[in-house]
């Protein structure tokens, strides 16, 4: 039970546990400005290229330009979940304190990316498919991903003992991984309105080069931006734990 951890909540021991996160603070403090600046620059170039330099689609017209937001946010939504699952694995197996905090902090950012993906997809769907929303395999599986994020956000914060929240959230995140292949292959397994992937690891992309390069800039910019936001949140969370440990130690001395 929790008796052991309640009996000796010494500030020194808590600080010792965060010796490694201290190193993280120093390192991330140096990397964070570069991450943030390069994310802004790359996204800026990508959005400018997408809006003003790339040609309009011969069928979809200017509506195709939403791809420069929609596709990067969709990539981010599923890769952020993968990141969440990996952090959860570290948290569950090695009880790594930074992985615990990373799982807490990735959740809301990933959920925001998923919401952005759903919102831009809906805006794109109205002119192309004639409906804001269709109950399609791809859309439904991304909606389930969004609910999984929300459930994880709620669960990991719902325990009085944060350690319990980390464990429960990690198990949920790992269970939810089954949804990722379903999202990936939903356009191939079912007849879907959603188009299949244009860019694959194997084989040439089926998207014109003039449209591909702004997309690549946006995708890279979004990914770096995600890394920057999560790093900043993680730094804030580590510092918050430190302050709490220091206050606890001072309260015990007094």
């Amino acid at each position: 039970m929790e008796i052991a951890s309640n009996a000796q909540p010494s500030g020194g021991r808590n600080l010792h546990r965060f010796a490694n996160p201290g190193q993280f603070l120093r390192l991330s403090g140096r990397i964070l400005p570069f991450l943030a600046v390069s994310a802004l620059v790359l996204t800026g170039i990508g959005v400018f290229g997408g809006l003003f330099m790339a040609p309009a689609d011969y069928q979809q017209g200017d509506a195709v330009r939403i791809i420069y937001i929609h596709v990067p946010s969709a990539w981010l939504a599923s890769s952020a979940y993968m990141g969440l699952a990996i952090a959860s694995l570290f948290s569950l197996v090695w009880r790594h304190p930074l992985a615990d905090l990373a799982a807490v902090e990735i959740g809301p950012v990933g959920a925001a990316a998923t919401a952005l993906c759903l919102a831009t997809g809906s805006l794109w769907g109205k002119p192309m498919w004639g409906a804001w929303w269709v109950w399609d395999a791809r859309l439904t599986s991304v909606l389930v991903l969004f609910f999984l994020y929300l459930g994880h956000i709620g669960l990991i914060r719902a325990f009085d003992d944060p350690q319990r929240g980390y464990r429960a959230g990690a198990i949920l995140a790992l269970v939810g991984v089954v949804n990722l292949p379903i999202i990936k292959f939903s356009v191939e397994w079912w007849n879907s309105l959603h188009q299949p992937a244009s860019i694959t690891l194997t084989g040439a992309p089926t998207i014109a080069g003039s449209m591909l390069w702004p997309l690549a800039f946006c995708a890279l910019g979004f990914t770096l931006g995600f890394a920057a936001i999560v790093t900043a949140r993680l730094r804030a969370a580590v510092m918050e734990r430190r302050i709490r440990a220091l206050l606890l130690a001072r309260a015990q001395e007094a």
Partner: protein
Amino acid sequence: MSFIGLIGRELRLSARHGADTLAALLFFVLAASLFPFAVGPAPETLARIASGVIWVCALLAALLPLDRLFGGDFEDGSLDQLLLSGMPPAMLALAKAVAHWLVTGLPLLLAAAPVAVMLRLPMENIPILIAGLLPGSMVLSLLGTLGAAIVLGARRGGVLLPLLVLPLAAPVLIFGVGAADAAMTGLTPRPHLLLLAAMLAGALPLAPIAAGAALRAASE
């Protein structure tokens, strides 16, 4: 305590709280009978939505008793005793899931046929609906046990539980209703039923392992 012994204990406990056990069944029948009031009693409308209504109501009804699945044992310390007894936590979770299915899933399965008749589902489609509900309700019991183990000890756990279980249960619902609808339109329900069986085959070993890990975390 052995696996069978634990299931027996759960069954005795729910027999002694008969009202709690019946509440889920009553909810199922009541919720399903609201739909004719809401969409009108036209037979063709009701027949079209009957299988979907039954699936959704069964899914929601199966969630009701999950709150207390581990709750009582967690509060009075029986859970710690059970975990100390040497039984693997996954086995303990599986026994709870089996007990949940026997106490909630099986009665829902039996009540589904009369409710389907009331909702004007054609007679020849009722066996397909039941054939889908049989593996479907088992998967729901396994997922529900997993959810109940994860939220154990959380604040507002009862509110959180449906938020966690419902997204995971969505595929079961899709293929369960898909089987019934395929039969309605004259197609074979076989692929849907096979996919449901595949989900059961996947959930049967994996859900208890995850639930067992959550139980061990809860009693740390």
